[in-house]
């Protein structure tokens, strides 16, 4: 699906994880207002969250002061004050742009989901919940900058854009655990990798894809209001999870 025309909303944020919840709110509520089901609103918020996380982690090496642009385009148009109550939007296109170093898309590999280890799920999630996922090199920044375009169809059936690769996701490492436990009890921990909370890719059957995939999405929960109780802890950009910087740098060639 390719859309022409300007975005309905274009937002620039700093690459500070503190702003993630605000962006999620924006995506969720805009999607809701243009007629998406609650569940799909949450899916798009989740996909946007994952995409921005990848930019911050892998594109900008966790720097908190770099620009990220988020654009929302309502495919099919939106209601005007004169047409309130109508829902002409057929899809929502979400574009995430950065000015980070460009990555060779063909070099980006996904890991096997059978590897039970932290990290490597961001792109997989995006592909599962969105109908179209496309990574590109920006052509307007003199050889730098990545663009991720994601589309969710308003009447998407089941399925998802399960075949795509990330521009900002790490390649798999050799860590592996036996997995398969359904009781959380101890079992062969050899090879388990610790201290890697970075979220990379995890897509089997991945391939670069540019065409719209209208097979819908796996049902992902929506984001909802969470009440705050017992104290007041709030993370900051300085509290980014302890990913493996070597992995991020190496696997993204950054």
């Amino acid at each position, binding site marked *: 699906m390719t859309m022409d025309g300007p975005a309905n909303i274009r937002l620039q944020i700093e690459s500070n994880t503190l702003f*993630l919840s605000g962006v999620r709110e924006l995506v969720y509520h805009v999607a809701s207002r243009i007629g998406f089901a609650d569940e799909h609103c949450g899916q798009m918020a989740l996909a946007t969250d994952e995409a921005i996380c990848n930019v911050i982690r892998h594109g900008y090496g966790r720097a908190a002061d770099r620009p990220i642009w988020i654009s929302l385009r309502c495919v099919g148009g939106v209601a005007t004050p004169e047409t309130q109550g109508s829902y002409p939007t057929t899809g929502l296109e979400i574009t995430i742009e950065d000015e980070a170093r460009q990555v060779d898309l063909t070099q980006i590999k996904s890991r096997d989901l059978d590897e039970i280890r932290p990290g490597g799920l961001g792109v997989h999630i995006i592909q599962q919940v969105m109908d179209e996922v496309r990574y590109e090199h920006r052509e307007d920044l003199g050889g730098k900058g990545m663009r991720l375009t994601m589309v969710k169809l308003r009447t998407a059936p089941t399925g998802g854009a399960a075949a795509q690769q990330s521009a900002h996701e790490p390649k798999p490492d050799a860590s592996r655990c036996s997995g398969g436990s359904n009781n*959380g009890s101890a079992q062969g921990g050899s090879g388990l990798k610790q201290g890697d909370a970075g979220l990379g890719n995890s897509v089997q059957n991945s391939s670069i894809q540019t065409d719209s995939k209208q097979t819908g999405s796996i049902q992902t929960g929506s*984001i909802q209001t969470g009440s705050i109780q017992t104290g007041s802890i709030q993370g900051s950009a300085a509290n980014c999870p302890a990913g493996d910087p070597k992995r991020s740098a190496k696997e993204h060639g950054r």
Partner: protein
Amino acid sequence: MSSGKLDVASRREGDTAILSPVGDIDINSQPILSAAIKQIQTDAGLARLVIDLAGVGYMDSSGVATLVQALQTARKKSTKLVLAAPQPRVLTILQIARLDTVFRVVADVETAKTG
């Protein structure tokens, strides 16, 4: 939708520890949960850690990574890790990650104490 904040309460019942995060678990708040889990998992005599997810309305892959790390530690220490009462939205992300069958997931904390 929420503010993105996260609070974590914990309590100990015999050899079982119950951790109750409330709020959103994302890349920004994940270190709070991770630190709480790590602290509990170093407690002497711990046989079972229950993470009560009833108060978690949003979790991204950062949260999933934290839980996987906790599971790995539990396995190393030969202790049990049980996820209790996840909201459908949280359970779904575990399903997408194909981890819903890797973790022990139960409907409520009481079941998690014995299940």
